[in-house]
Protein backbone atom coordinates (compact mmCIF):
# COMPACT_ATOMS: atom_id res chain seq x y z
CA UNK A 1 0.00 0.00 0.00
CA UNK A 2 2.69 2.43 1.00
CA UNK A 3 4.71 1.45 -2.03
CA UNK A 4 1.86 2.23 -4.40
CA UNK A 5 1.30 5.74 -3.00
CA UNK A 6 4.99 6.29 -3.35
CA UNK A 7 4.83 5.12 -6.91
CA UNK A 8 1.99 7.52 -7.65
CA UNK A 9 3.50 10.54 -5.95
CA UNK A 10 7.15 10.06 -6.86
CA UNK A 11 7.06 11.32 -10.46
CA UNK A 12 5.03 14.41 -9.55
CA UNK A 13 7.31 15.35 -6.68
CA UNK A 14 10.30 15.12 -9.00
CA UNK A 15 8.57 17.15 -11.73
CA UNK A 16 7.16 19.92 -9.56
CA UNK A 17 10.22 22.21 -9.36
CA UNK A 18 10.69 22.11 -13.12
CA UNK A 19 7.02 22.87 -13.71
CA UNK A 20 7.13 25.84 -11.33
CA UNK A 21 10.18 27.35 -13.03
CA UNK A 22 8.89 26.79 -16.55
CA UNK A 23 5.44 28.18 -15.81
CA UNK A 24 6.65 31.37 -14.14
CA UNK A 25 9.57 32.21 -16.40
CA UNK A 26 8.37 30.89 -19.77
CA UNK A 27 4.62 30.28 -19.81
CA UNK A 28 3.68 33.53 -18.09
CA UNK A 29 5.76 35.76 -20.42
CA UNK A 30 4.36 33.83 -23.39
CA UNK A 31 0.79 34.55 -22.38
CA UNK A 32 1.67 38.14 -21.54
CA UNK A 33 3.14 38.51 -24.99
CA UNK A 34 0.03 37.12 -26.69
CA UNK A 35 -2.12 39.60 -24.79
CA UNK A 36 0.29 42.43 -25.59
CA UNK A 37 0.05 41.70 -29.30
CA UNK A 38 -3.62 42.73 -29.26
CA UNK A 39 -2.95 46.03 -27.49
CA UNK A 40 -1.43 49.27 -28.69
CA UNK A 41 1.47 49.54 -26.29
CA UNK A 42 4.24 51.78 -27.59
CA UNK A 43 6.34 54.67 -26.44
CA UNK A 44 3.24 56.90 -26.59
CA UNK A 45 0.90 54.45 -24.87
CA UNK A 46 2.93 52.77 -22.17
CA UNK A 47 0.61 53.00 -19.17
CA UNK A 48 -2.65 53.57 -21.02
CA UNK A 49 -2.49 50.80 -23.64
CA UNK A 50 -5.86 49.61 -24.95
CA UNK A 51 -6.99 46.56 -26.81
CA UNK A 52 -6.95 47.13 -30.54
CA UNK A 53 -7.78 43.63 -31.79
CA UNK A 54 -5.98 42.36 -34.85
CA UNK A 55 -4.71 45.75 -36.00
CA UNK A 56 -1.02 44.85 -35.77
CA UNK A 57 -1.54 41.51 -37.42
CA UNK A 58 -3.37 42.96 -40.38
CA UNK A 59 -0.80 45.70 -40.85
CA UNK A 60 2.05 43.18 -40.67
CA UNK A 61 0.52 40.96 -43.32
CA UNK A 62 -0.17 43.84 -45.69
CA UNK A 63 3.34 45.27 -45.39
CA UNK A 64 5.94 44.23 -47.92
CA UNK A 65 8.53 44.16 -45.17
CA UNK A 66 7.35 40.87 -43.68
CA UNK A 67 7.86 38.94 -46.90
CA UNK A 68 11.33 40.35 -47.51
CA UNK A 69 12.48 39.64 -44.01
CA UNK A 70 10.84 36.24 -44.04
CA UNK A 71 12.63 35.33 -47.27
CA UNK A 72 15.97 36.37 -45.79
CA UNK A 73 15.23 34.37 -42.65
CA UNK A 74 14.59 31.29 -44.79
CA UNK A 75 17.87 31.72 -46.66
CA UNK A 76 19.67 32.30 -43.37
CA UNK A 77 18.19 29.20 -41.74
CA UNK A 78 18.52 26.83 -44.69
CA UNK A 79 22.07 27.90 -45.57
CA UNK A 80 23.21 27.56 -41.97
CA UNK A 81 21.55 24.23 -41.34
CA UNK A 82 22.81 22.81 -44.63
CA UNK A 83 26.43 23.62 -43.82
CA UNK A 84 26.07 22.64 -40.15
CA UNK A 85 24.80 19.19 -41.07
CA UNK A 86 27.04 18.66 -44.12
CA UNK A 87 30.21 19.75 -42.33
CA UNK A 88 29.21 18.17 -39.03
CA UNK A 89 28.34 14.77 -40.45
CA UNK A 90 31.22 14.79 -42.95
CA UNK A 91 33.85 15.57 -40.35
CA UNK A 92 32.29 13.16 -37.85
CA UNK A 93 32.54 10.37 -40.42
CA UNK A 94 36.21 11.16 -40.98
CA UNK A 95 36.87 11.25 -37.24
CA UNK A 96 35.06 7.98 -36.79
CA UNK A 97 37.49 6.30 -39.18
CA UNK A 98 41.10 5.47 -38.47
CA UNK A 99 42.59 8.90 -37.94
CA UNK A 100 45.93 9.64 -36.36
CA UNK A 101 45.34 12.07 -33.47
CA UNK A 102 41.56 11.91 -33.76
CA UNK A 103 41.14 13.15 -30.19
CA UNK A 104 43.26 16.22 -30.92
CA UNK A 105 41.22 17.09 -34.02
CA UNK A 106 37.98 16.60 -32.11
CA UNK A 107 39.13 18.79 -29.22
CA UNK A 108 40.23 21.60 -31.53
CA UNK A 109 37.18 21.43 -33.78
CA UNK A 110 34.86 21.78 -30.81
CA UNK A 111 36.36 25.15 -29.82
CA UNK A 112 33.93 27.47 -31.66
CA UNK A 113 31.21 25.97 -29.50
CA UNK A 114 33.20 26.68 -26.33
CA UNK A 115 34.00 30.34 -26.88
CA UNK A 116 31.05 32.56 -25.87
CA UNK A 117 28.95 33.49 -28.89
CA UNK A 118 29.10 37.26 -28.50
CA UNK A 119 32.89 37.13 -28.39
CA UNK A 120 33.01 35.04 -31.57
CA UNK A 121 30.60 37.35 -33.35
CA UNK A 122 32.53 40.50 -32.46
CA UNK A 123 35.81 38.86 -33.43
CA UNK A 124 34.44 37.87 -36.83
CA UNK A 125 33.14 41.41 -37.29
CA UNK A 126 36.71 42.59 -36.85
CA UNK A 127 37.94 39.93 -39.26
CA UNK A 128 35.53 41.15 -41.95
CA UNK A 129 36.82 44.72 -41.66
CA UNK A 130 37.48 46.00 -45.17
CA UNK A 131 41.02 47.26 -44.61
CA UNK A 132 42.37 45.57 -41.50
CA UNK A 133 40.30 42.41 -41.34
CA UNK A 134 42.04 39.07 -41.68
CA UNK A 135 39.60 37.77 -44.31
CA UNK A 136 40.36 40.48 -46.84
CA UNK A 137 44.06 40.41 -45.99
CA UNK A 138 44.16 36.71 -46.78
CA UNK A 139 42.19 37.26 -50.00
CA UNK A 140 44.53 40.04 -51.06
CA UNK A 141 47.96 38.98 -49.86
CA UNK A 142 47.77 35.21 -49.96
CA UNK A 143 45.27 34.36 -52.70
CA UNK A 144 45.78 37.58 -54.73
CA UNK A 145 42.07 38.20 -55.13
CA UNK A 146 40.15 41.45 -54.90
CA UNK A 147 39.05 42.36 -51.35
CA UNK A 148 35.33 42.01 -50.69
CA UNK A 149 33.27 45.03 -49.52
CA UNK A 150 31.76 43.03 -46.63
CA UNK A 151 29.59 45.63 -44.97
CA UNK A 152 28.85 48.16 -47.70
CA UNK A 153 27.21 45.65 -50.03
CA UNK A 154 23.87 44.21 -48.90
CA UNK A 155 24.55 40.70 -50.23
CA UNK A 156 28.04 40.36 -48.78
CA UNK A 157 26.83 41.88 -45.53
CA UNK A 158 24.41 38.96 -45.34
CA UNK A 159 27.03 36.37 -46.32
CA UNK A 160 29.36 37.50 -43.53
CA UNK A 161 27.08 36.51 -40.62
CA UNK A 162 26.23 33.24 -42.38
CA UNK A 163 29.93 32.33 -42.55
CA UNK A 164 30.26 33.27 -38.90
CA UNK A 165 27.31 31.17 -37.86
CA UNK A 166 28.34 28.16 -39.92
CA UNK A 167 31.65 28.30 -38.11
CA UNK A 168 29.87 28.60 -34.77
CA UNK A 169 27.33 25.85 -35.30
CA UNK A 170 28.96 22.90 -36.98
CA UNK A 171 30.77 21.53 -33.87
CA UNK A 172 27.43 20.80 -32.20
CA UNK A 173 26.24 18.74 -35.19
CA UNK A 174 29.63 17.07 -35.39
CA UNK A 175 29.44 15.88 -31.79
CA UNK A 176 25.84 14.70 -32.15
CA UNK A 177 26.73 12.83 -35.36
CA UNK A 178 29.84 11.34 -33.79
CA UNK A 179 27.77 9.97 -30.92
CA UNK A 180 25.33 8.47 -33.40
CA UNK A 181 28.07 6.96 -35.54
CA UNK A 182 29.72 5.32 -32.55
CA UNK A 183 26.49 3.62 -31.59
CA UNK A 184 26.25 1.89 -34.99
CA UNK A 185 27.46 -1.69 -34.52
CA UNK A 186 30.44 -2.53 -36.70
CA UNK A 187 28.91 -5.85 -37.77
CA UNK A 188 26.34 -3.97 -39.84
CA UNK A 189 29.10 -2.57 -42.04
CA UNK A 190 30.69 -5.97 -42.35
CA UNK A 191 27.35 -7.48 -43.32
CA UNK A 192 26.86 -4.76 -45.92
CA UNK A 193 30.34 -5.43 -47.26
CA UNK A 194 29.56 -9.12 -47.58
CA UNK A 195 26.49 -8.15 -49.56
CA UNK A 196 28.82 -6.30 -51.89
CA UNK A 197 27.95 -2.73 -50.88
CA UNK A 198 30.45 -0.01 -51.80
CA UNK A 199 31.25 3.06 -49.75
CA UNK A 200 28.19 4.87 -51.08
CA UNK A 201 25.93 1.89 -50.51
CA UNK A 202 27.13 1.55 -46.93
CA UNK A 203 26.49 5.25 -46.34
CA UNK A 204 22.99 5.10 -47.84
CA UNK A 205 21.87 1.82 -46.31
CA UNK A 206 23.61 1.69 -42.95
CA UNK A 207 24.94 5.08 -41.84
CA UNK A 208 22.09 7.33 -42.91
CA UNK A 209 19.11 5.33 -41.57
CA UNK A 210 20.82 4.71 -38.24
CA UNK A 211 21.98 8.30 -37.92
CA UNK A 212 18.53 9.70 -38.61
CA UNK A 213 16.96 9.22 -35.16
CA UNK A 214 19.94 10.97 -33.53
CA UNK A 215 20.26 13.72 -36.10
CA UNK A 216 16.59 14.60 -36.57
CA UNK A 217 16.00 16.13 -33.10
CA UNK A 218 19.31 17.97 -33.43
CA UNK A 219 18.15 19.38 -36.76
CA UNK A 220 14.83 20.51 -35.27
CA UNK A 221 16.62 22.18 -32.36
CA UNK A 222 19.25 23.60 -34.69
CA UNK A 223 16.58 25.08 -36.95
CA UNK A 224 14.82 26.74 -34.05
CA UNK A 225 18.08 28.05 -32.60
CA UNK A 226 19.26 29.37 -35.96
CA UNK A 227 15.91 30.89 -36.84
CA UNK A 228 15.90 32.70 -33.48
CA UNK A 229 19.58 33.49 -33.28
CA UNK A 230 19.82 37.21 -33.07
CA UNK A 231 23.23 37.57 -31.41
CA UNK A 232 25.28 36.59 -34.42
CA UNK A 233 23.59 38.53 -37.19
CA UNK A 234 23.03 41.55 -34.95
CA UNK A 235 26.60 41.77 -33.72
CA UNK A 236 28.30 40.92 -37.01
CA UNK A 237 26.28 43.39 -39.08
CA UNK A 238 26.17 45.98 -36.32
CA UNK A 239 22.37 45.94 -36.03
CA UNK A 240 21.34 45.46 -39.66
CA UNK A 241 23.93 47.40 -41.65
CA UNK A 242 23.88 48.53 -44.39
CA UNK A 243 20.64 50.50 -43.96
CA UNK A 244 18.61 47.75 -42.23
CA UNK A 245 19.08 45.43 -45.20
CA UNK A 246 20.39 42.44 -43.28
CA UNK A 247 17.56 41.71 -40.89
CA UNK A 248 16.08 38.34 -40.15
CA UNK A 249 12.75 38.14 -38.35
CA UNK A 250 14.15 38.21 -34.80
CA UNK A 251 16.50 41.14 -35.35
CA UNK A 252 13.68 42.99 -37.07
CA UNK A 253 11.49 42.36 -34.03
CA UNK A 254 14.23 43.45 -31.66
CA UNK A 255 14.71 46.67 -33.57
CA UNK A 256 10.97 47.35 -33.61
CA UNK A 257 10.70 46.78 -29.87
CA UNK A 258 13.87 48.23 -28.41
CA UNK A 259 14.89 50.86 -30.96
CA UNK A 260 11.46 52.10 -32.09
CA UNK A 261 9.55 51.11 -28.91
CA UNK A 262 6.68 49.56 -30.89
CA UNK A 263 6.10 46.94 -28.21
CA UNK A 264 2.72 45.60 -29.31
CA UNK A 265 3.70 45.54 -32.97
CA UNK A 266 6.84 43.57 -32.07
CA UNK A 267 4.79 41.25 -29.88
CA UNK A 268 2.42 40.50 -32.77
CA UNK A 269 5.40 39.87 -35.03
CA UNK A 270 6.90 37.43 -32.56
CA UNK A 271 3.60 35.58 -32.23
CA UNK A 272 3.69 35.05 -36.00
CA UNK A 273 7.27 33.76 -35.80
CA UNK A 274 6.24 31.44 -32.99
CA UNK A 275 3.48 29.85 -35.07
CA UNK A 276 5.77 29.53 -38.09
CA UNK A 277 8.25 27.56 -36.00
CA UNK A 278 5.53 25.53 -34.37
CA UNK A 279 4.19 24.54 -37.80
CA UNK A 280 7.63 23.69 -39.07
CA UNK A 281 8.48 21.52 -36.08
CA UNK A 282 5.32 19.46 -36.25
CA UNK A 283 5.55 19.04 -40.01
CA UNK A 284 9.18 17.99 -39.71
CA UNK A 285 8.54 15.56 -36.89
CA UNK A 286 5.59 14.00 -38.65
CA UNK A 287 7.50 13.70 -41.93
CA UNK A 288 10.49 12.01 -40.37
CA UNK A 289 8.31 10.07 -37.96
CA UNK A 290 10.66 10.81 -35.12
CA UNK A 291 7.99 11.50 -32.53
CA UNK A 292 7.03 7.90 -31.92
CA UNK A 293 10.56 6.72 -31.21
CA UNK A 294 11.13 9.66 -28.89
CA UNK A 295 7.86 9.42 -27.01
CA UNK A 296 7.85 5.67 -26.65
Amino acid at each position, binding site marked *: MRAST*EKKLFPYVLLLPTIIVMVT*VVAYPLVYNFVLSFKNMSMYHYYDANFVGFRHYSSIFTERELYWVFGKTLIWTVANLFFHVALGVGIAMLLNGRIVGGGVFRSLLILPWAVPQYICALTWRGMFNHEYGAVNLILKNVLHLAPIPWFSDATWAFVAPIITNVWLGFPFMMIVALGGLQSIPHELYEAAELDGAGALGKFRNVTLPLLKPVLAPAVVLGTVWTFNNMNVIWLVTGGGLPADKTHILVTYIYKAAFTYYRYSYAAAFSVIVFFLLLGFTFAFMRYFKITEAVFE
Partner: protein
Amino acid sequence: MKGRGTRILAHVFLVIVTLATIYPIVQIVGISLRPADRLYSTSLRVIPEDATGKAYHAVVFEKDFLLWLRNSTIVSAIVTLVGVALASTAGYVFSRFRFVARRFGLYSLLIAQMFPATMLLLPLYVLMKGLHLLDSMVGLAVAYVATALPFCVWTMKGYYDTIPKELEEAALIDGASYWRAFRTVVLPLAAPALAITAIFSFMSAWSEFMVARVIVSTRTLYTLPLGLESLSSTFQTEWANYAAGSVLVSLPVVLIFLFLNRYFVSGLTLGGVKQ
Protein backbone atom coordinates in the same frame (compact mmCIF):
# COMPACT_ATOMS: atom_id res chain seq x y z
CA MET B 1 38.66 4.19 -45.90
CA LYS B 2 40.62 1.47 -47.58
CA GLY B 3 43.30 2.95 -49.75
CA ARG B 4 46.33 4.77 -48.41
CA GLY B 5 45.49 7.68 -50.67
CA THR B 6 42.06 8.28 -49.19
CA ARG B 7 43.49 8.09 -45.70
CA ILE B 8 46.09 10.73 -46.46
CA LEU B 9 43.43 12.87 -48.13
CA ALA B 10 41.23 12.58 -45.04
CA HIS B 11 44.09 13.78 -42.84
CA VAL B 12 44.91 16.69 -45.13
CA PHE B 13 41.26 17.74 -45.22
CA LEU B 14 41.01 17.56 -41.42
CA VAL B 15 44.15 19.62 -40.97
CA ILE B 16 42.83 22.35 -43.28
CA VAL B 17 39.40 22.45 -41.64
CA THR B 18 40.95 22.50 -38.18
CA LEU B 19 43.30 25.36 -39.07
CA ALA B 20 40.41 27.38 -40.48
CA THR B 21 38.40 26.61 -37.36
CA ILE B 22 40.94 27.72 -34.79
CA TYR B 23 42.21 30.72 -36.75
CA PRO B 24 39.64 33.22 -35.37
CA ILE B 25 40.37 32.03 -31.84
CA VAL B 26 44.10 32.40 -32.33
CA GLN B 27 43.36 35.83 -33.74
CA ILE B 28 41.72 36.98 -30.48
CA VAL B 29 44.77 35.84 -28.56
CA GLY B 30 47.02 37.69 -31.00
CA ILE B 31 45.10 40.94 -30.67
CA SER B 32 45.16 40.73 -26.88
CA LEU B 33 48.98 40.67 -27.05
CA ARG B 34 49.31 43.70 -29.32
CA PRO B 35 50.83 46.86 -27.95
CA ALA B 36 48.38 49.76 -27.85
CA ASP B 37 49.90 51.59 -30.80
CA ARG B 38 49.45 48.68 -33.22
CA LEU B 39 45.75 47.91 -32.86
CA TYR B 40 45.14 48.54 -36.54
CA SER B 41 47.61 46.36 -38.27
CA THR B 42 47.64 44.98 -41.79
CA SER B 43 50.10 42.27 -40.85
CA LEU B 44 48.88 38.69 -40.90
CA ARG B 45 51.29 37.67 -38.15
CA VAL B 46 49.36 35.95 -35.42
CA ILE B 47 51.65 36.78 -32.51
CA PRO B 48 52.90 40.37 -32.90
CA GLU B 49 56.69 40.91 -32.86
CA ASP B 50 56.60 42.99 -29.71
CA ALA B 51 53.97 41.00 -27.83
CA THR B 52 53.03 42.44 -24.49
CA GLY B 53 50.82 41.35 -21.60
CA LYS B 54 49.90 44.96 -20.82
CA ALA B 55 46.27 44.54 -21.87
CA TYR B 56 45.83 41.64 -19.44
CA HIS B 57 47.31 43.68 -16.64
CA ALA B 58 45.07 46.60 -17.52
CA VAL B 59 41.91 44.52 -17.64
CA VAL B 60 42.49 42.69 -14.38
CA PHE B 61 43.87 45.51 -12.27
CA GLU B 62 42.49 48.72 -13.75
CA LYS B 63 38.99 47.58 -14.68
CA ASP B 64 36.33 45.87 -12.58
CA PHE B 65 37.18 42.51 -14.09
CA LEU B 66 37.52 40.70 -10.76
CA LEU B 67 34.13 41.99 -9.66
CA TRP B 68 32.48 40.82 -12.90
CA LEU B 69 34.23 37.49 -12.48
CA ARG B 70 32.82 37.09 -8.99
CA ASN B 71 29.27 37.93 -10.13
CA SER B 72 29.44 35.60 -13.11
CA THR B 73 30.83 32.80 -10.98
CA ILE B 74 28.02 33.12 -8.43
CA VAL B 75 25.28 33.17 -11.07
CA SER B 76 26.81 30.35 -13.12
CA ALA B 77 27.28 28.17 -10.03
CA ILE B 78 23.65 28.60 -8.98
CA VAL B 79 22.42 27.92 -12.52
CA THR B 80 24.58 24.80 -12.87
CA LEU B 81 23.50 23.32 -9.54
CA VAL B 82 19.80 24.07 -9.97
CA GLY B 83 19.83 23.14 -13.67
CA VAL B 84 21.41 19.74 -13.06
CA ALA B 85 19.11 19.03 -10.11
CA LEU B 86 15.94 19.90 -12.04
CA ALA B 87 16.90 18.34 -15.38
CA SER B 88 18.18 15.09 -13.93
CA THR B 89 14.97 14.52 -11.97
CA ALA B 90 12.48 15.77 -14.56
CA GLY B 91 14.24 13.88 -17.34
CA TYR B 92 14.05 10.70 -15.28
CA VAL B 93 10.30 11.07 -14.79
CA PHE B 94 9.79 11.65 -18.53
CA SER B 95 11.88 8.60 -19.35
CA ARG B 96 10.47 6.08 -16.87
CA PHE B 97 6.93 7.02 -15.87
CA ARG B 98 3.75 7.12 -17.89
CA PHE B 99 1.36 9.78 -16.63
CA VAL B 100 -1.32 12.17 -17.76
CA ALA B 101 0.03 15.00 -19.91
CA ARG B 102 3.45 13.40 -20.35
CA ARG B 103 3.39 13.99 -24.08
CA PHE B 104 2.07 17.50 -23.49
CA GLY B 105 4.94 18.15 -21.09
CA LEU B 106 7.60 17.01 -23.53
CA TYR B 107 6.05 19.01 -26.36
CA SER B 108 5.76 22.09 -24.15
CA LEU B 109 9.45 21.94 -23.37
CA LEU B 110 10.19 21.81 -27.09
CA ILE B 111 7.76 24.62 -27.85
CA ALA B 112 9.26 26.74 -25.08
CA GLN B 113 12.37 26.97 -27.26
CA MET B 114 10.42 28.28 -30.21
CA PHE B 115 9.45 31.68 -29.04
CA PRO B 116 11.92 34.36 -30.09
CA ALA B 117 13.87 34.91 -26.89
CA THR B 118 14.14 38.61 -27.59
CA MET B 119 10.41 38.99 -27.16
CA LEU B 120 10.40 37.30 -23.79
CA LEU B 121 12.60 40.14 -22.59
CA LEU B 122 9.88 42.70 -22.05
CA PRO B 123 7.46 40.33 -20.21
CA LEU B 124 10.43 39.01 -18.23
CA TYR B 125 11.30 42.52 -17.16
CA VAL B 126 7.74 43.15 -15.99
CA LEU B 127 7.68 39.80 -14.19
CA MET B 128 11.00 40.30 -12.41
CA LYS B 129 9.88 43.74 -11.35
CA GLY B 130 6.70 42.24 -9.84
CA LEU B 131 8.70 39.59 -7.99
CA HIS B 132 11.24 42.17 -6.76
CA LEU B 133 13.99 40.21 -8.48
CA LEU B 134 15.10 43.00 -10.76
CA ASP B 135 18.77 43.88 -10.44
CA SER B 136 19.56 40.72 -8.49
CA MET B 137 21.69 37.63 -8.99
CA VAL B 138 18.74 35.40 -8.09
CA GLY B 139 16.52 36.92 -10.77
CA LEU B 140 19.21 36.42 -13.36
CA ALA B 141 19.81 32.83 -12.24
CA VAL B 142 16.09 31.97 -12.42
CA ALA B 143 15.87 33.30 -15.98
CA TYR B 144 18.95 31.33 -17.06
CA VAL B 145 17.76 28.08 -15.49
CA ALA B 146 14.54 28.41 -17.44
CA THR B 147 16.32 29.00 -20.77
CA ALA B 148 18.66 26.04 -20.35
CA LEU B 149 16.13 23.63 -18.89
CA PRO B 150 14.23 22.40 -21.97
CA PHE B 151 17.39 21.23 -23.75
CA CYS B 152 18.76 19.70 -20.54
CA VAL B 153 15.58 17.79 -19.74
CA TRP B 154 15.49 16.37 -23.28
CA THR B 155 19.13 15.38 -23.11
CA MET B 156 18.70 13.65 -19.76
CA LYS B 157 15.54 11.89 -20.90
CA GLY B 158 17.24 10.65 -24.05
CA TYR B 159 20.12 9.29 -22.05
CA TYR B 160 17.99 7.58 -19.40
CA ASP B 161 16.16 5.87 -22.26
CA THR B 162 19.37 4.07 -23.15
CA ILE B 163 19.81 2.69 -19.60
CA PRO B 164 18.02 -0.65 -19.21
CA LYS B 165 15.00 -0.54 -16.92
CA GLU B 166 15.85 -3.92 -15.44
CA LEU B 167 18.61 -2.32 -13.39
CA GLU B 168 16.29 -0.31 -11.16
CA GLU B 169 13.63 -2.97 -11.20
CA ALA B 170 16.13 -5.28 -9.55
CA ALA B 171 16.83 -2.64 -6.89
CA LEU B 172 13.10 -2.07 -6.30
CA ILE B 173 12.53 -5.80 -5.83
CA ASP B 174 15.33 -5.79 -3.28
CA GLY B 175 13.25 -3.29 -1.31
CA ALA B 176 14.85 0.00 -2.32
CA SER B 177 12.59 3.06 -2.51
CA TYR B 178 12.05 4.75 -5.88
CA TRP B 179 14.27 7.61 -4.84
CA ARG B 180 17.03 5.24 -3.73
CA ALA B 181 16.83 3.23 -6.92
CA PHE B 182 17.10 6.43 -8.94
CA ARG B 183 19.82 7.98 -6.83
CA THR B 184 22.11 4.97 -6.41
CA VAL B 185 21.50 2.93 -9.57
CA VAL B 186 20.48 5.16 -12.46
CA LEU B 187 22.06 8.52 -11.67
CA PRO B 188 25.68 7.28 -11.54
CA LEU B 189 25.21 5.60 -14.92
CA ALA B 190 24.00 8.87 -16.42
CA ALA B 191 27.30 10.66 -15.72
CA PRO B 192 27.98 11.63 -19.38
CA ALA B 193 24.55 13.24 -19.75
CA LEU B 194 24.97 14.97 -16.39
CA ALA B 195 28.26 16.40 -17.66
CA ILE B 196 26.52 17.81 -20.74
CA THR B 197 23.68 19.25 -18.68
CA ALA B 198 26.14 20.86 -16.28
CA ILE B 199 28.20 22.40 -19.07
CA PHE B 200 25.18 23.59 -21.00
CA SER B 201 23.69 25.22 -17.88
CA PHE B 202 27.01 26.76 -16.96
CA MET B 203 27.55 28.16 -20.45
CA SER B 204 24.08 29.61 -20.76
CA ALA B 205 24.83 31.67 -17.66
CA TRP B 206 28.52 32.36 -18.29
CA SER B 207 28.14 33.82 -21.76
CA GLU B 208 24.64 35.27 -21.86
CA PHE B 209 24.26 38.93 -22.66
CA MET B 210 20.76 40.06 -23.70
CA VAL B 211 18.83 38.91 -20.62
CA ALA B 212 21.53 40.20 -18.28
CA ARG B 213 21.31 43.58 -19.94
CA VAL B 214 17.58 43.80 -19.25
CA ILE B 215 17.64 42.48 -15.67
CA VAL B 216 20.84 44.01 -14.30
CA SER B 217 21.47 47.74 -14.36
CA THR B 218 23.69 48.37 -11.32
CA ARG B 219 27.34 48.43 -12.38
CA THR B 220 28.50 46.50 -9.32
CA LEU B 221 26.23 43.62 -10.31
CA TYR B 222 27.57 43.39 -13.89
CA THR B 223 28.42 39.91 -15.10
CA LEU B 224 31.40 39.28 -17.41
CA PRO B 225 29.49 39.74 -20.70
CA LEU B 226 28.07 43.07 -19.53
CA GLY B 227 31.47 44.17 -18.33
CA LEU B 228 33.21 43.16 -21.53
CA GLU B 229 30.58 44.91 -23.58
CA SER B 230 31.20 48.06 -21.61
CA LEU B 231 34.84 47.77 -22.69
CA SER B 232 33.95 47.17 -26.34
CA SER B 233 31.52 50.07 -26.56
CA THR B 234 34.53 52.33 -26.58
CA PHE B 235 35.99 50.23 -29.37
CA GLN B 236 38.60 52.63 -30.65
CA THR B 237 40.66 52.73 -27.52
CA GLU B 238 40.11 49.41 -25.77
CA TRP B 239 40.18 46.76 -28.49
CA ALA B 240 43.24 45.07 -26.93
CA ASN B 241 41.70 45.18 -23.46
CA TYR B 242 38.51 43.73 -24.85
CA ALA B 243 40.44 40.91 -26.52
CA ALA B 244 42.36 40.19 -23.33
CA GLY B 245 39.11 40.09 -21.38
CA SER B 246 37.61 37.77 -23.99
CA VAL B 247 40.52 35.38 -23.67
CA LEU B 248 40.18 35.32 -19.89
CA VAL B 249 36.42 34.75 -20.11
CA SER B 250 36.72 31.98 -22.68
CA LEU B 251 39.58 30.18 -21.01
CA PRO B 252 37.63 28.31 -18.31
CA VAL B 253 34.96 27.17 -20.78
CA VAL B 254 37.56 26.07 -23.32
CA LEU B 255 39.39 24.09 -20.64
CA ILE B 256 36.17 22.40 -19.52
CA PHE B 257 35.41 21.49 -23.14
CA LEU B 258 38.88 20.11 -23.72
CA PHE B 259 38.72 17.91 -20.64
CA LEU B 260 35.16 16.73 -21.00
CA ASN B 261 34.54 16.47 -24.74
CA ARG B 262 34.92 12.69 -24.61
CA TYR B 263 31.72 12.59 -22.58
CA PHE B 264 29.94 14.81 -25.07
CA VAL B 265 30.05 12.18 -27.74
CA SER B 266 28.36 9.57 -25.59
CA GLY B 267 26.16 11.97 -23.63
CA LEU B 268 24.38 13.83 -26.41
CA THR B 269 21.88 11.18 -27.41
CA LEU B 270 19.09 13.60 -28.10
CA GLY B 271 16.84 11.10 -29.77
CA GLY B 272 17.57 8.33 -27.32
CA VAL B 273 19.06 5.52 -29.39
CA LYS B 274 17.76 2.32 -27.93
CA GLN B 275 20.06 -0.62 -27.96
